């Protein structure tokens, strides 16, 4: 279709108009309780989504068909690229990724429209929220149309594209941004609800029930997105490094921390009609940090290996959007937050209660977020103040965030045991002392099996085990075993309410993640040797023999492949093939690692080049329990989704 991209462009412009309609009609409709205006608004939201889908599809078609008359395709694609990477190339650049962002924004808008259509209770809140969502959509569509148009054509048709950075030709790129954006953009729904609450002067239990499902979905997606990014970086940018506290990584972590606090805070609003102003603030900050994250990746403000594009002018435009989108709600918050909880009849909880525990959890998460934000921006602040340049890297973040997370992990298993309003220490002690015993015993076993553990390793593993005992304790409670009624225990477990199951899965995920971090941070190993063909080297209790180094031709690269055979202590053998690839079009080189993934960790073999005369360099890394890092994240995602699915849809069930 020669005019495909023009259609895409036109569809986007129409969508712009529709989101304006959506925002205005819903706002007016909610204010004047006009059912007709509200209907117009949510219909506009659905139409806007359909149009953005068309627009996105046109851009994707242009990439798939290698239509190099489109400037974006010419600069970021190539005819020889495999189709998956042509598609992922759509969002592997600034303009296309903004269109993906808008696609997901309007998707959530359409889903919210669907809910608005169905519900009878809380319609005005929902209408305001969808209106705010429309405003965000229109801001981003406007940003694309006026500053970052992906549909621009070239006047002369090049023979072929400039290809894509070969490091980005990886399944990780295909899935990481969409998942991450689902999370970032999903938080916009929570944000919209928060602004709606400020407009209506009400953030009560009904509001919280409406909002929490959306936030759970966004949180789960964000967890998955960050985990995918970390996994991708593990293979792409480091040799076993999975987190570097790079500004872009921090930019994704901060909304996640706030979203975690938000889910827990919403629960308190739902259940006890307290913490209204905290929760609304968290919801605004969550999406605010998502926007700031987008901003940092594109503006060139901070140096990063991950930076998408370094365009300070675009950065200023995005900053202006952020100033309006976050500044106005925060000013509204300053003026009206005091009214949010005025109708509550809830009594103040005792100091020893679940509310306080959740409050403490929120506080710690917020402190961690502020710490990460300060660390990320501090070099900039210092430079603004006196021109000096300093670096704030992993040592700072590990030293400051570590203890905070440790504190949270310490309290995590205790909180679900505490009763609302007033908890009794003697009651929970019955459950805590077995948890402590089991943790101590298991930790002692670990200490006996593994030598040379330092205090940090012991603490981290201990905390992971401790959280696991907490999950077991709660499941025991569900089964009624604490009250010693073994009959029917299994039935009770099978009938576990989904939110409780989800919570325990997510908390289990945290524990698994913690142990994964301990394993790979304290017990990893690296051996580097120069080998001739036929030589061998040892890593762990296995022997690795270099059997061949041979040329390989790929679809858009030439490579040299080294084959290493591992013979384990039990005689099992496995083959590792690691390549150094040269991409003639992009004129760059990448090294492909060969990874053996197992439940107990990874073995990671990398070919470092060389010649027959001087020998070939082979690196072998042992990464114990690294799979638990992503396994733990996966459990968290599943826990979040299960909780979302089982979440009450009406206030009465909360």
């Amino acid at each position: 279709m020669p005019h495909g991209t023009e259609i895409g462009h036109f569809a986007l412009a129409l969508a712009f108009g529709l989101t304006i309609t959506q925002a205005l009609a819903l706002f007016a409709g909610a204010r004047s309780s006009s059912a007709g205006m509200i209907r117009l608004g949510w219909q506009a939201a659905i139409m806007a989504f359909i149009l953005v889908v068309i627009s996105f599809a046109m851009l994707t078609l242009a990439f798939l068909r290698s239509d190099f008359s489109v400037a974006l395709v010419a600069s970021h694609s190539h005819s020889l690229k495999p189709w998956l990477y042509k598609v992922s190339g759509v969002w592997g650049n600034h303009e296309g990724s903004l269109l993906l962002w808008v696609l997901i924004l309007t998707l959530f808008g359409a889903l919210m429209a669907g809910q608005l259509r169905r519900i009878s209770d809380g319609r005005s809140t929902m209408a305001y929220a969808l209106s705010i969502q429309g405003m965000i959509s229109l801001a981003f569509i406007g940003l694309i149309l006026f500053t970052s148009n992906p549909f621009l054509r070239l006047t002369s048709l090049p023979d072929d594209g400039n290809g894509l950075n070969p490091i980005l030709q990886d399944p990780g790129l295909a899935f990481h941004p969409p998942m991450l954006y689902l999370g970032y953009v999903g938080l916009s729904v929570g944000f919209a609800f928060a602004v709606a609450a400020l407009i209506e002067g009400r953030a009560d239990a009904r509001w919280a029930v409406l909002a929490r499902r959306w936030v759970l979905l966004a949180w789960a997606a964000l967890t998955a997105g960050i985990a995918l990014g970390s996994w991708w970086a593990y293979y792409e940018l480091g040799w076993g490094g999975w987190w570097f506290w790079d500004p872009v990584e921090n930019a994704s972590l901060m909304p996640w921390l706030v979203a975690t606090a938000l889910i827990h805070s919403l629960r308190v609003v739902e259940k006890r009609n307290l913490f209204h102003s905290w929760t609304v603030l968290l919801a605004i900050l969550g999406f605010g940090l998502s926007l700031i994250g987008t901003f940092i990746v594109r503006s060139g403000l901070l140096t990063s290996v991950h930076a998408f594009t370094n365009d300070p002018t675009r950065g200023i435009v995005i900053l202006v959007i952020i100033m309006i989108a976050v500044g106005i709600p925060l000013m509204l918050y300053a003026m009206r937050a005091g009214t949010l909880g005025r109708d509550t009849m809830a009594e103040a909880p005792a100091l020893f209660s679940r509310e306080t525990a959740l409050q403490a959890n929120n506080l710690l998460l917020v402190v961690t977020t502020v710490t990460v934000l300060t660390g990320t921006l501090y070099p900039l602040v210092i430079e603004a103040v006196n021109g000096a340049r300093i670096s704030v890297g992993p040592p700072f973040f590990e030293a400051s965030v570590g203890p905070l997370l440790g504190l949270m992990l310490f309290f995590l298993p205790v909180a679900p045991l505490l009763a609302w309003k007033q908890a009794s220490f003697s009651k929970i002690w019955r459950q805590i002392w077995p948890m402590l015993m089991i943790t101590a015993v298991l930790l002692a076993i670990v200490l006996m099996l593994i030598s040379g553990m330092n205090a940090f390793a012991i603490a981290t593993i201990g905390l992971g085990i401790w959280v696991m005992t907490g999950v077991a304790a709660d499941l025991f409670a569900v089964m009624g075993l604490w009250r010693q009624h073994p009959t029917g225990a299994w039935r009770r477990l099978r009938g576990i309410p989904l939110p409780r199951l989800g919570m325990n899965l997510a908390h289990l995920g945290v524990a698994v993640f913690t142990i994964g971090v301990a394993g790979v941070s304290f017990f990893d190993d690296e051996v580097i040797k120069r080998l001739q063909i036929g030589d061998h080297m040892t890593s762990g209790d296995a022997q690795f023999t270099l059997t061949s180094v041979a040329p390989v031709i790929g679809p858009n690269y030439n490579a040299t492949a080294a084959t290493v055979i591992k013979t384990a202590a039990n005689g099992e053998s496995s083959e590792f093939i690691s390549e150094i690839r040269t991409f003639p079009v992009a004129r760059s080189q990448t090294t492909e690692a060969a990874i053996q993934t197992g439940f107990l960790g990874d073995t990671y073999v990398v070919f470092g080049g060389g010649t027959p005369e001087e020998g070939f360099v082979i690196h072998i890394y042992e990464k114990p329990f690294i799979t638990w890092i992503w396994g733990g994240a996966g459990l968290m995602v599943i826990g979040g989704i299960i909780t979302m699915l089982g979440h009450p849809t009406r206030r009465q069930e909360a």
Partner: protein
Amino acid sequence: MICRLISQALMVLIMVMMVSLSGSLFSALPTPAHAILPEEQLTNPADEARARALANELRCLTCQNQTVDDSNSDFAITIRSIIREQITNGKSDDDILNYLRQRYGDYILFSPPFNRMTMVLWLTPIIVLILGLGIIIWTRPRLASAIDDRKIK
């Protein structure tokens, strides 16, 4: 009902994933050329570990936010050999870091030194924690008194 089925299906999925991960998955996935060469390494493992740790604390000044240990650039390679030479000559970690700091400033250190300029940074967690606790405590009692006021009315 459907929700329960979905959740049970997800549980099965987790089990399948765990089982399959415990097998062997081979993949060829991209990484940049690895930085350390065997010849660079020191023979004494403790010294070599020190050298790697130090290199991980230093910023590669000709790269985009990478450590000297990670980077392939000429600058990083030379810094690494300087580190190893100085370790072999008996210099302490502080000596080596100061040597580089004297020439390149605090920017080359990924762990900012604790001084008047960076005090706020290092103390951020404590400051914010105390501030947060303060705000929570300050905004708490009013709730109880607001209820009391209403009850009195």
